[in-house]
């Protein structure tokens, strides 16, 4: 095993000072949290208001907090890698430790940063945008969150207990098989992703049902806000792509713990089949995290240019085309397998085709800005920064799509630079735009502009300084995932520059966090509920919205409903009239989603260490909890009219 000799097979990982530092900080943070909660007598509050909540807005906030913490965690991994690679022949990290760090960096960034970030946005914005009071299945929504949360905990635990996975975020067989990678590390990867994946599939179904069945009267599909449309496209992808991952992970797990031979070299196994199945999920996954960012940009560009989005129908159809065509490109991740001319040609052409709808979107955003009255607020800055970055990354993507040329680029730093440009310049910038955009709606205050701008410039300059040299490094032959390199390759200067850029982004993150802390105390309060002069329904509500969202469900006549009403001076039509208020049907809070999460965690932990008694106990608890739930007949209640009237009056809306 790794770094490290595992003290008793399996428990605490020992042998590296960095790990002892991590152990100490985990213990300190846990003690600190327990102390603060006890000292301020907040345990009950935490349990009642948060851990048992089924309110989409609170679940969104919890996803958001988790995503930002995981961005910090995996960002630290990135900085450790860049420190190791700053100069040749360094010994900051050993080879095994480096393997573990790039594995957890990628895994966490995709599954436990990008995914919860998009789920946070879905939860925060979609029900408010379509005039619904919650999602279609609020209880399932809470289960999804806790499966994600405990999946993330399981993976993070591997760091100190048992050892981290070390076969890359893709965990290709046969390297990730038992023969080449014994020990619990890879099991942690397989189980944590399996658990969080179940939650993701449920979220996909949940939001698709919400959007199709719970729109306010009058909101036809073609009157939906573009962010909601992007979530439709995303969820179609989630529903059809995640099962492929679940099967690939399950088969590899059966190989590892039950001695099967699906993906082994001998006994008729087919290792390439794992890679094939992984990317059947893996390529749609790129669009699963990217499409919501497209939706965010569409909202932000229209709002801050004070113009209707250019080419609404083209935007919708291009998103749907992306969601279908992205199923026909997966083999471009393994052109070098040698699938033959016809296979590689087909997937090369399909990969290039996907550039067309994406290009349509970029042009539409620019045409929306053209002759608009643009306000350079934080969400708009991030959107504008996204465009050149994404176009550069897209161009390098076109180069990678040319199958014969890919044989040169494959697994080099050229590729590393390309996908970071798409995933940071596309996804992360989009998430940041959304963070600044919807923050006032969620928390009731605006994030400070000055701190935001400092963070913005650190991030942006840092990004180009970090990743542009990596294109050159790739062309000079530097391979992905190498833990060190000899001097005299001509790589030293570029690597050093790249490391500087990484640390600039690290500073950007800290400034961003500092800005959030500053704004909690000094940020401008959002008293109108409409700080950006918005266009869609969520801006007609107070910030933060009451827990039932809409006292009276609005009737929709227009695509930019709120903007149109403001133009006509008829904002009052969206205010509730006392005679229209009826008792509101709402779901009750429940402890069971949290407990199901705990049970899944226990089962997962049991499987990781082949402790089948614990695994069986966990699975048994899951079944019991599901049974108890199915005999529960009073899972909902009605908010009386008086209470709604009282709340709305206190908000100054009656």
């Amino acid at each position, binding site marked *: 095993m790794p770094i490290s000799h595992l003290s008793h097979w399996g428990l605490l990982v020992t042998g590296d000072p960095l790990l002892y530092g991590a152990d100490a900080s985990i213990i300190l943070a846990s003690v600190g949290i327990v102390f603060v909660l006890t000292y301020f007598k907040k345990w009950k509050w935490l349990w009642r208001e948060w851990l048992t909540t089924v309110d989409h807005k609170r679940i969104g906030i919890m996803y958001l907090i988790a995503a930002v913490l995981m961005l910090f965690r995996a960002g630290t991994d990135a900085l450790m890698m860049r420190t190791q690679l700053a100069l040749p022949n360094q010994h900051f990290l050993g080879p095994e430790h480096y393997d573990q760090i790039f594995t957890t960096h990628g895994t966490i960034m995709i599954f436990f940063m990008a995914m919860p970030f998009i789920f946070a946005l879905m939860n925060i914005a979609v029900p408010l945008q379509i005039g619904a*009071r919650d999602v279609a299945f609020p209880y399932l929504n809470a289960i999804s969150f806790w499966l994600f949360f405990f999946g993330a905990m399981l993976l993070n635990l591997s760091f100190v207990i048992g050892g981290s996975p070390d076969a890359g975020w893709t965990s290709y067989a046969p390297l990730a098989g038992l023969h080449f990678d014994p020990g619990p590390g890879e099991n942690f990867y397989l189980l944590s992703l399996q658990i969080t994946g179940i939650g993701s599939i449920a979220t996909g179904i949940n939001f698709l049902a919400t959007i199709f069945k719970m729109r306010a009267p009058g909101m036809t599909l073609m009157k939906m806000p573009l962010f909601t449309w992007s979530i439709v496209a995303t969820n179609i992808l989630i529903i059809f792509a995640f099962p492929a991952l679940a099967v690939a992970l399950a088969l590899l797990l059966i190989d590892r713990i039950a001695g099967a031979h699906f993906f082994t070299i001998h006994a008729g196994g087919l290792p390439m089949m794992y890679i*094939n199945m992984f990317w059947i999920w893996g390529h749609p996954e790129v669009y699963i995290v990217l499409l919501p960012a497209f939706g965010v940009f569409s909202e932000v560009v229209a709002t801050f240019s004070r113009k209707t989005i250019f080419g609404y129908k083209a935007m919708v159809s291009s998103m749907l085309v992306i969601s279908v065509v992205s*199923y026909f490109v997966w083999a471009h991740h393994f052109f070098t397998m040698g*699938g*033959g001319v016809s296979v590689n040609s087909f997937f090369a052409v399909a990969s290039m085709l996907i550039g067309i709808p994406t290009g349509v979107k970029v042009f539409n955003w620019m045409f929306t800005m053209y002759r608009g009255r643009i306000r350079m607020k934080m969400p708009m800055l991030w959107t504008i920064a996204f465009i050149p970055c994404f176009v550069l990354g897209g161009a390098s993507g076109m180069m990678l799509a040319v199958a014969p040329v890919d044989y040169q680029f494959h697994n080099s730093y050229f590729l590393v630079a390309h996908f970071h440009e798409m995933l940071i310049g596309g996804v992360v910038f989009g998430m940041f735009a959304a963070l600044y955009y919807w923050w006032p709606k969620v928390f009731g205050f605006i994030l400070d502009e000055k701190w935001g701008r400092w963070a913005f410039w650190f991030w942006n300059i840092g990004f180009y300084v970090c990743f542009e040299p990596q294109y050159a490094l790739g062309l000079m032959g530097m391979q992905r995932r190498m833990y060190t390199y000899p001097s005299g390759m001509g790589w030293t200067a570029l690597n050093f520059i790249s490391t500087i850029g990484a640390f600039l982004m690290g500073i950007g993150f800290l400034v961003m966090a500092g800005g959030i802390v500053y704004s909690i105390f000094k940020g401008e309060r959002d008293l109108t509920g409409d700080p950006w002069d918005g266009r869609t329904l969520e801006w007609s509500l107070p910030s933060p919205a009451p827990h039932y969202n809409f006292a009276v469900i609005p009737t929709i006549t227009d695509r930019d409903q709120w903007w149109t009403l403001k133009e006509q001076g008829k904002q009052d039509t969206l205010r509730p009239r006392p005679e229209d208020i009826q008792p509101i049907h709402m779901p009750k809070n429940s402890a069971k989603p949290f407990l199901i999460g705990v049970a899944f965690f226990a089962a997962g932990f049991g499987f990781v260490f082949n402790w089948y008694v614990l695994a069986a106990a966990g699975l048994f608890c899951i079944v019991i909890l599901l049974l108890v739930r199915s005999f529960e007949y009073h899972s909902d209640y009605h908010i009386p009219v008086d209470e709604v009237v009282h709340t709305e009056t206190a908000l100054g809306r009656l």
Partner: protein
Amino acid sequence: MLNTPESRSGMGHHHAERFPWKGIIGYVLSIILTGFSMWIGLTHAAQFGTALFVILGLAVLQIFVQMFLFMHVTESDEGPPWQVLGLLAGLLFVATIVGMSMWIMTFNGQAS
């Protein structure tokens, strides 16, 4: 669904509290189908080609059990028939995934 009229006026579908025969039958059938394919796989009861087709057939039956006995595919509501659209999309994606995986994994006849 919180916004639908019947759920706003209380619980919609609770008037019919009969014994869940559909669920029980589906449960037993799905266990039999799964158990039988597992038995074929573990005991090598049939030759490879035969076993493959038998298991495929059982899998298709399993799909029907799931759709009709658990997933309410025949029930409908006002509005577009979303389940039909969903099934069509599913068919497209499954055909793509299975067909193209076979195509990719034959290595274009260059390896076997």
